[in-house]
């Protein structure tokens, strides 16, 4: 099963108000520090409150570490790629430009730099593991979603490598990155399948997001070329008249036009298969 969205009150109950206040102090102060520049004197005062943001969209450091461990063990599937995690918008209007990310445990805390493409890496930290630290962006729950980003260098423009995407799925499942609520994704994913083995199914419904809105996706291996069917794009919108109503429960809500799934478990397509993208914009 994809990790289902944890109701906010459950998260709130897991933390004492003092700890939450501290967490948000770290995030607010660090956000302020990031924004400081020549106009630092114009920054407004920061108000710290345990209720400032009771619904952070956070992930378990331990689970993400497990994903990193899986990547290390299966790195041969994508030998030239590095593992990065990626933040993506989930709600309209989500500001993706000023995100601050912190790893916070009982005593451990550190900031994680985020690249301009919204990707980041997590350092190995024994104390964060021991304290079951959380990876916390300064955003409300359901405002963003997470994926892995594993890209072999040197590929042709507008292509990805199938082996990289297979590993993205496995690491993403192991790291518990997928945040969906309601039964929507349960239906998409045939329920309780949050293990990397799910990615070995012939046609798993693990949602990938292209860099831009998609028109067509083609698998290419040697002379063999196959265009993905329309029901493998756009979160199966072509066959789901109720999709619009379900979208708020899917982490693809604002990314539908970039969404696709792949026949990850179909081994007739080797890892070096190229996944070619044709975008709506451009030629």
């Amino acid at each position: 099963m994809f990790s289902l969205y944890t109701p906010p009150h459950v998260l709130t109950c897991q933390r004492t108000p003092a700890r939450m206040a501290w967490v948000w102090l770290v995030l607010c102060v660090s956000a302020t520090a990031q924004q400081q520049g020549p106009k630092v004197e114009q920054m407004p005062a920061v108000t710290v409150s345990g209720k400032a943001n009771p619904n952070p969209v956070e992930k378990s450091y331990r689970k993400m570490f497990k994903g990193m461990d899986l990547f290390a063990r299966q790195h041969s599937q994508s030998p030239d790629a590095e593992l990065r995690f990626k933040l993506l918008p989930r709600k309209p209007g989500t500001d993706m430009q000023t995100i601050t990310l912190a790893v916070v445990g009982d005593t451990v805390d550190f900031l994680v730099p985020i690249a301009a493409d919204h990707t980041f890496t997590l350092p190995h930290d024994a104390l964060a593991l021991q304290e079951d630290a959380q990876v916390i962006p300064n955003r409300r729950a359901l405002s963003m979603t997470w994926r892995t980003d594993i890209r072999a260098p040197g590929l042709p423009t507008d292509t990805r490598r199938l082996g990289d995407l297979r590993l993205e799925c496995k690491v993403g499942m192991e790291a518990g990155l997928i945040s969906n609520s309601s039964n929507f994704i349960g239906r998409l994913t045939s329920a309780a399948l949050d293990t990397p083995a799910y990615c070995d199914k012939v046609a798993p419904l693990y949602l990938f997001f292209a860099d831009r809105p998609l028109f067509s996706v083609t698998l290419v291996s040697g002379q063999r070329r196959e265009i993905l069917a329309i029901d493998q794009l756009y979160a199966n919108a072509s066959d789901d008249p109720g999709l619009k109503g379900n979208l708020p429960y899917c982490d693809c809500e604002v990314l539908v036009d970039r969404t696709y799934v792949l026949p990850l478990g179909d081994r007739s397509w080797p890892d070096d298969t190229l996944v070619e993208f044709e975008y709506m914009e451009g030629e």
Partner: protein
Amino acid sequence: MMRQRTNKRLVRVGLALVASLWLGACGSLNAGRTAPPFRDPAMSMQSAHDTIEEGKTTQAEALAALGPTTEIRFDSGYAVWVYRARTAEPDADRAEFVILFAPSGVVKKTRLRPAY
């Protein structure tokens, strides 16, 4: 009684008629494995593709030429229309003709996908 018997005979005839129509429909699908998804049953995927001109054909013109179909409309203003061949087997892979309309309502791109 007579009336009952007549009714039973009528029901039997009706059922036979429905069954033969249904089998006939299945047979026509099975014969060619697929049926065209267009308003004109004689129109092939390729001829539909040839009918649509990128950068020129409008939604109204496409609708008139090909008939109604599934539309996916995005917040960006883009819209995708997909014409999928009808098959007798629900899980069969199907050929598709897909049209992308720009927010202006004019065809931006098209693609033909064969059944694999």
